[in-house]
Structures are given as structure tokens and as C-alpha cells.
């Protein structure tokens, strides 16, 4: 089979590249290879565009206006603000009603499972009532069986960190679910047990703990596909606003984002394959001709490398060096080892990656393109510590957007 654009890797940058290629040319044939790595398991579902300036200690309120303070090498600086805005507009178009924040350039802040604060520019509707910048007090309710979210501890922290009044309470796990995924399944199916549907049973379990606070935060387990209906049922019956707090991995809001992107890609004519790793690459005269997983081979006019960083197998190796295993693109490494002395330190391996030209084509040390029809996006790129900066979503989205556009122009 032959495509106009083949995207290798199914993280946010991969979907962004595929959707962008289709957006630029709706008639194009675009295929995305979702590799084995589960790229959305630790995604929060929040789209973090720039939460902190590099090394910054306070969250950034207006990420786009902070771009001119970023180093020239930062992907946002290199792509330019217009491209970042266009990429966000594409996301808004894709996400529709399922995300909140469309059109805004101001970050919102959300509670994490341990009561810290995470900034995001776009966020799922299921978490939106949890904004900690708004004043109404909130009550966090945790389930004893889900140990990632100690609601009382998180509440104490959040209460101290923010001007909000936050209370917390732990209750026995409703529905006797042994994991958030199991609870989500029971709620999606609204499974009847003892003559009572799952959603009603959840409402009954929550009823006694709803207090004066006008909103309650629950572990992100409110269904995988029926979240809106489930949330609405709770809100209506208990007359409170409801929001989810992301847990993980696997993170349900991350999974839902993946489904949203995958469904949209397919509905817009893109192809989606779950593939094994690419093991063979056929090249001629500076072009990629074909790639193969050993079982399946794929041919395209242009390729987008979107396999992620060292956390996802997009870069492999260690303890001294990293390499890019699919196309064997050169990798630049910051000069001091792969990881920092501190667990929460600024790990060089996160900054490591493939250097590119201004068109996002991987380049060799003499600045020439590895292949004229190969582009790269997202975490596989050399760049800032998008994890520490809470910028992984935005950088993935924007570089994917640009790579997809460039790739489709060529075809």
C-alpha cells in the first residue's frame, strides 16, 4: 500500500501530524502507525501548552505571551506563534464540546491526585469544574480502594497551596470496583447489581459525603465513553458540580483523549493501524522509500517520525548514549549523562533528541536532511524539558501540526 503521508507513532504529536496533513489536504491519504508503546497511559488528558517557564517556580498564566521569553531554540520560538495558534485551533476543532478552553490563551489550573496544581490551556469537560483559580470551595472525595488518590491528604495540600477552601473525604470504594478502569466499565455499562444500576449506586455512595461545597472532585473513573452522561447524573441527583481528578497509569482522561483523536482521524478519512516496531527502512538517494515491521510494509511520499522520546522507546540506549532506532537519525545529547542526580531533576534524556532544520526534517551534523521526505515531531525532537515545563501537550500538538503540514505539502 502507498500513502501520501505515513505517521510513525501514536502520541499526541502523531495524531496532530495526521490530522494536520488531512486538514491541509482533505483528499490526502494519511496513515498513522500506532506503535506498541502506550503513549496515553500517563497523559492527564489536559493539554499543557506551557505551564512553567524553564526553571520557573510559578505557573504561567498566559503561555503564548511567554513565548517571546523562551530561547530561540524552543520549538515554539522556531515555529512561531501563528503556527502554535493554528495548531490550537485545529485541536479546538477536533475536540469540540469535549474540551473546554477553546479560543482562550489563558491557562487554567487543576488539582492533581496529590493536591498539587497542574496548568493547562485546554482541558476535558470532565475536569473543568475543578479549576482551582475560581473561588467556590471544593470537596475532594477519594475511594479507599484507589490508593493513588488520598483525597484528605490532597485536600490539605491544595487548601494550603491555593486560596480555595478545600476539604477531603475518603469513602469505601463504590461498586466494589477494584480499579478505576473497572469502575469506568461498570458505569459505562450502567451494570445492574442487586436490582440497582451502577450509576445510581455511585450516587447513593456519594450522597452522604456531599456537603456545603458546591463542587466535588472524584477519582477519574467516571466511565471511559459515557463520562458526560455519568457526570451529569451525579450532578443532577446530588445538585453539585462534579469534576474528575486524573489518576494513572492508565489515566482514563488520557485514554479518552486518545479515543477522541483516533475517532476523529478515522472520521476524516485517515487510516489507523496498530503496528509492531519498524524494523526495516528502505532508502534511495536521500529519500525514505518504504518502511516495514517485518510483517507489514508501508510506502509513502513522506514520513513523520513521532515515536516519542526515551520514555516511550522513540529514543533507546543508555547508560551513555541514545539513538533513534527507526530511521537512525542522529541524536543530540546534552553534555552530562542521561539522568540528573535528583529524581525530579532536569534529566538530559528528556531534552535529548533529533535535531531538525526549520522544516522539522531531522538533520545530520552538517545540517543536511537525513532524508528529504522525513519529518519529526514531538518528544523525539531535541528540545526543552517539556515534562518539567508542563509543555508536552502543546509542543507535541504544534510540532505535529507543522510536520503534518510540511509532509502533506510535499505529497
Amino acid at each position, binding site marked *: 500500500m502507498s500513502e501520501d503521508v505515513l505517521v510513525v507513532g501514536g502520541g499526541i504529536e502523531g495524531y496532530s501530524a495526521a490530522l494536520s496533513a488531512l486538514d491541509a489536504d482533505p483528499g490526502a491519504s494519511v496513515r498513522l502507525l500506532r506503535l506498541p508503546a502506550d503513549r496515553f497511559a500517563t497523559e492527564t488528558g489536559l493539554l*499543557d501548552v506551557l505551564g512553567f517557564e524553564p526553571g520557573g517556580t*510559578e505557573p504561567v498564566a498566559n503561555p503564548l505571551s511567554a513565548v517571546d521569553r523562551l530561547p530561540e531554540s524552543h520549538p515554539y520560538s522556531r515555529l512561531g506563534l501563528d503556527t502554535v495558534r493554528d495548531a490550537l485551533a485545529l485541536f479546538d476543532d477536533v475536540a469540540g464540546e469535549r474540551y473546554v478552553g477553546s479560543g482562550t490563551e489563558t491557562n*487554567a*489550573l487543576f488539582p492533581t491526585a*496529590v493536591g498539587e496544581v497542574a496548568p493547562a490551556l485546554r482541558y476535558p469537560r470532565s475536569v473543568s469544574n475543578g479549576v482551582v483559580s475560581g473561588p467556590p470551595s471544593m470537596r475532594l472525595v477519594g475511594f479507599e480502594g484507589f490508593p493513588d488518590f488520598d483525597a484528605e491528604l490532597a485536600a490539605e495540600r491544595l487548601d494550603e497551596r491555593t486560596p480555595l*477552601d478545600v476539604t477531603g473525604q475518603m469513602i469505601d470504594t463504590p461498586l466494589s470496583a477494584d480499579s478505576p478502569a473497572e469502575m469506568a466499565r461498570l458505569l459505562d455499562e450502567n451494570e445492574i447489581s442487586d436490582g440497582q444500576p451502577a450509576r445510581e449506586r455511585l450516587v447513593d455512595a456519594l450522597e452522604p459525603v456531599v456537603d456545603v461545597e*458546591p463542587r466535588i472532585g472524584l477519582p477519574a473513573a467516571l466511565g471511559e465513553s459515557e463520562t458526560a452522561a455519568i457526570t451529569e447524573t451525579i450532578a443532577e441527583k446530588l445538585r453539585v458540580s462534579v469534576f474528575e481528578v486524573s489518576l494513572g497509569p492508565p489515566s482514563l482522561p488520557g485514554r479518552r483523549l486518545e479515543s477522541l483523536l483516533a475517532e476523529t482521524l478515522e472520521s476524516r478519512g485517515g487510516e489507523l493501524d496498530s503496528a509492531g516496531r519498524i524494523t526495516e527502512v528502505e532508502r534511495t538517494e536521500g529519500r525514505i522509500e518504504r518502511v516495514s515491521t517485518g510483517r507489514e510494509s508501508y510506502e509513502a511520499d513522506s514520513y513523520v517520525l513521532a515515536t516519542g522520546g526515551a520514555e516511550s522507546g522513540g529514543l*533507546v*540506549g543508555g547508560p551513555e548514549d541514545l539513538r533513534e532506532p527507526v530511521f537512525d537519525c542522529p541524536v543530540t545529547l546534552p553534555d552530562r549523562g542521561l539522568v540528573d542526580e535528583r529524581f525530579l531533576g532536569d534529566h538530559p534524556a528528556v531534552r535529548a533528541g533529533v535535531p531538525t532544520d526549520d522544516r522539522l526534517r531531522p538533520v545530520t551534523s552538517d545540517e543536511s536532511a537525513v532524508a528529504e521526505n522525513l519529518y519529526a515531531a514531538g518528544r523525539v525532537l531535541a528540545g526543552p524539558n517539556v*515534562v518539567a515545563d508542563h509543555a508536552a501537550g502543546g509542543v507535541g500538538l504544534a510540532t505535529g501540526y507543522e510536520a503534518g503540514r510540511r509532509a502533506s505539502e510535499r505529497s
Partner: protein
Amino acid sequence: MAYTPHVLVIGGGVLGTAIARDCALRGLEVTLVEQGTLAAGTTGSIHGLLYSGARFVEENPTAAMRCLTENRTLREIAGHCIEDTEGVVLPAEKGEFDAFVDACEQRSIPASALGRSDLDEIGVADGIDRGVRVPDGVVDPFALTRANATSAENYGAEIKTGASVVELLTDGTDIVGAEVEFDQSPGGVRAPTSPSEDVPEETREPEVDEEEEEPIDAEDDDEEDTPGMPGTVQRSFPGATEDDTPDTGEREEIEADYVVNAAGAWADQIAGLAGIKLPLSRSRGRMVVLSGELTDSAVTRRSDDGYPITAAPYQGNTVVGPIPEPTELEEALAAVEAVLPAASEAAVLRSYTGVWTQHASSSASPYGHDATLVDHEKYDDRWGLLSVIGGSVTTHRFVAEQAVNRVCREFGIGRSCLTADLSLPDTSIRSGDSGPVLCEARSVGREAVRSAIDASEPEPELANVRTQTGATMGECQGGRCGHRIAAELYPDHDHETVDESLETLLQRRWRGRRETLADDQLAAALDDYEFHARLLGRDDERQEEVDTDSFDESGFTIPERSRADQRYRGEDSVLPVIDGVPRGTDGRAKCSEAVGQ
């Protein structure tokens, strides 16, 4: 006995706790002080091997026989700390094989020859045709130390952890006790201080007892971080003032009739507090933990330099070592792979370094073969202090017995030692509780974690959770379970203590983990980092309070007919209006305060 002498034991390793237990069983009054947590020094950084003595029966038959006896004794009194894995020795040549089997037979060490089919089962590589099965085992040094300590307490001993000796009390010449400083840092006990490296030459030869110890190999623990190792955090000398010294804690003078210095790698510093020079020699070896049990026996093949590297199963993983410095890790792993091919598939989980301390005058071979009792009355004219140097987990009970015999002799007490006859209590915490699993890799549940935390009160110590339950010792090294475990400190401790304890726990695990990261382990480590930094939003360098003023707050919507609807109305839907008074972002009024008006 008209008068009961009070003995102060310094050092909470397996030896110190055994000395305290022995003293208590003989009816002495005893206090033990430990600067960090129990088993946090050399004891906790061993390989985990319970020696049968077979490994060095030719070179050191005395030590071999001692090990065999103590091995059998420990199986009787502390069976719950020991896994009967047996050991396999792989002699390189036929001649060596024959000599080895002969030597074992001569000393009545049970040794059975293994053929190729046996070696297949054990996982030994093709091409190695002969081996010998010997009665080694694997011992949990934490459980053993805890058992000693608990037994000691049951017989009346007092055990104080987090208590650093800052002064030895003297009446001019005699040692009459010690002043300790309690650690006051929240969330745990201060890290142990570093032993000094520069030990002046000692002119006098102390008496060297012929009590043998054997290659201490090790299990893991990096909590304790081995004293003074390059690459580990440098700690301050006890009592020294340094910028990073934690806040001075409470001090206590403990008067004693006799002091036993069992401070291991720190023993010279303790003696130094009384102006006594105690020259020590230290040898080091690196341990590497590989994922999975590559073999069910402790397998040793002698290497060319004469120090055998052993691969032993330990709590679901395999501990390889000790690798003598300066051998490269790759080289050592290649040597292990040549014997156990499965090692090539295993991931390196972490590494740590063990230190073995000997008296400088002892003819000790590395890894702690000999134990030395130094009576400072005899050598330094200072009555009241006995230093016990060396010893291994296998022979610690015997060394303790010798030391306590000496102490009893000082007071004319003739009671015999009971430690070989009385079983040690099982203090381990078994999983299988009804609560949720916190550490999936080790199937450790909430109740087990809570029990381990309770056992470490009043100073909550997450290291105790690790040593008592095995939690955080799987592939994630706490990356996916540490926050759950730390959360169990709440609400008995506040969120700041939780934060600090979590930070300490993760940082300790990270030290062992970061050195060896490659491939899947690197990916997993970075994923764990991302989980903390991004999903949990943790960053200890960020500001505690977040100024939320200029952030978007339009996400919050009030459901129709909300109970909040009556209170939250007004021009701006997110600003609550209470009794006609808008409570906004500027007033910083908390809703609950407002509601009460």
C-alpha cells in the same frame, strides 16, 4: 546478682543488636543506640548469602567450620529469616573440583557433586560440566536484625534509633557512657554520618581473636548507603558542625558501666570521641540487582583474582556481587552471563556498594573474614570500652557471644550464653490484607505498610516499610508506589512530613537506580519521572503557594437547580455572592468563612 551492670551498645546492625540481645538474655541491663535505622549500615548492604563455609574451606578451614555451625544455628533459631536456596559452587577445573570436594568431605561439610542435568535445571550455561551443591542459604539481614532487636527488647533491652553518639562520657580515664543526639528531622531519621577515611597508623597491636567471619555478601539496601563511598552523599562527622547539619536535636547523656562499640564502619569515629585511635581497613564491593530470579540457588564461580562473584536469588530478584573495585560493571555482568545465560535478558534494577570493615592489624581477607575484639583497657588504658570490629551476618551471633563473654568477665558474671538456644521472634509483616495493594510489584497491601509505619513510630520511617514489607523494591523502585506509601503517614503526620518522606524515599531509590539506566529501564524511569512531574504535578523546587489570580476560571459551571445555585449567583457566575456580599478573587475570603457570616 546484687548489682546489675548497665551496658551501652553503640550500633544497630546485626552485630550490635545480637550483642544487646545476648546481654539482655544474660540478665544485664542494656541500652542500644543507633544513629540511623536498624541494619542501615554494612548489615543492610550485604549480598544476602548465608554461608556454609564450603566456599573457603580450603583457604580458611577455621572460618569455614564456624560458618557451618552458625549456619545451622541460625536455621534453627531464625528460620523465618532464611530461605533454603542451597548454594552451587562451580570449580573451574577438574583438579580444583576434586580438591574442593575432598576438602568439604574432610571437614564434614555436606557437598554433593552435580552433573550436567542438575546444572541445566539450575540454569548454568552449557560448557560448565561440574558443580558442587553446598548447604548455603539466603538470609534477610533486615529481618534478622529486627528479630535480634525485638528479642533484646523482649528481655528488657532499650533500643534507641535516630540517636547519634556525639560524646563518650569519661571520668577522666574510664568510659562511663555516652551522650547522644536524637534526630529531629521530620519524616525520618537523619542519614548516618560518614566514617572517616584517614586513620593514623596504630603503633600498638591489639589482640586479635581468631573468630572468623566470612565474605559478607550482601543484600540490598541503599538507604544506608554505604559509608564514605565515592558517589554517595558525603555526610558529616558525628558532632561536627556543618551547614547542612540538620537542626540540633535533643541530647541525652546515657550513663553506663560498660560501652560496646559495634558501630561497624563508624567504629573508629566512636573510639575517636574518647581520643582513642582505632585503625580500620575497609574494603568495598559493588552489588548489582538484576530483575527476576535467574536461578534458585546461590551460584558462585571463582574468578581469576580469587574473589568469587556470586549470583543469589533475593526476594524475587537476583543479587550479583560483590564485584571488587575497580572492576567495570559490564565486565562483571559478562562474567555472570557466562555462567547464567538468563542474566543477559535481565534488567539491571540498581546497584549499591558494600563496605567491609576490619581492624587494620588483622590479617583479614576482604569481605570481612575476621572479627577482632579490642579491649581498650588493655591497649589504651581506658577501662569500659570494647570495640568489636568485623563479623558477618552468618557468624554475627558467635561474635556477639565472644564479645558478651568478655563483658561478663569484666563484672565477674559467669552466666552462659543462651542466644543459640532460644528462637528469634518473627517480626516480618506478611501481606495478604484486605486493603488495596500499594506496591504491585511486591504485592504489599495497605495494612502491611501501616503496620511497618507504626513499628517505626514515633519517628515515621519509610525505610522501615521497605525493609519490613519489601515494598518499593520492584522494578519501579518506588516510582509508582512511593506516593501511595508516603500517603499512609497521613493523617498522623502532616502533608509536609509526607512530602519530605516521599522525597527522601524516591531520592534513595533513585541513587541506586540512576547509575545503571539503559533501554527499557531508562524508559521506565523516565516514565516514572513524568508520572510524578506531570501527572502528579510534583516539583519540590516550586513555590508552596500558587497565586491563582490571573488564571482562567471559566471552567467552573453551576449545574441547573444546584444547591449551590442559591448561594452562587450574581453578575459573574463563578463569583459567589453570600448574603449579598460578593466574595471575589481579590478579597481572598474563603467560602467557609463567608458561609458562616
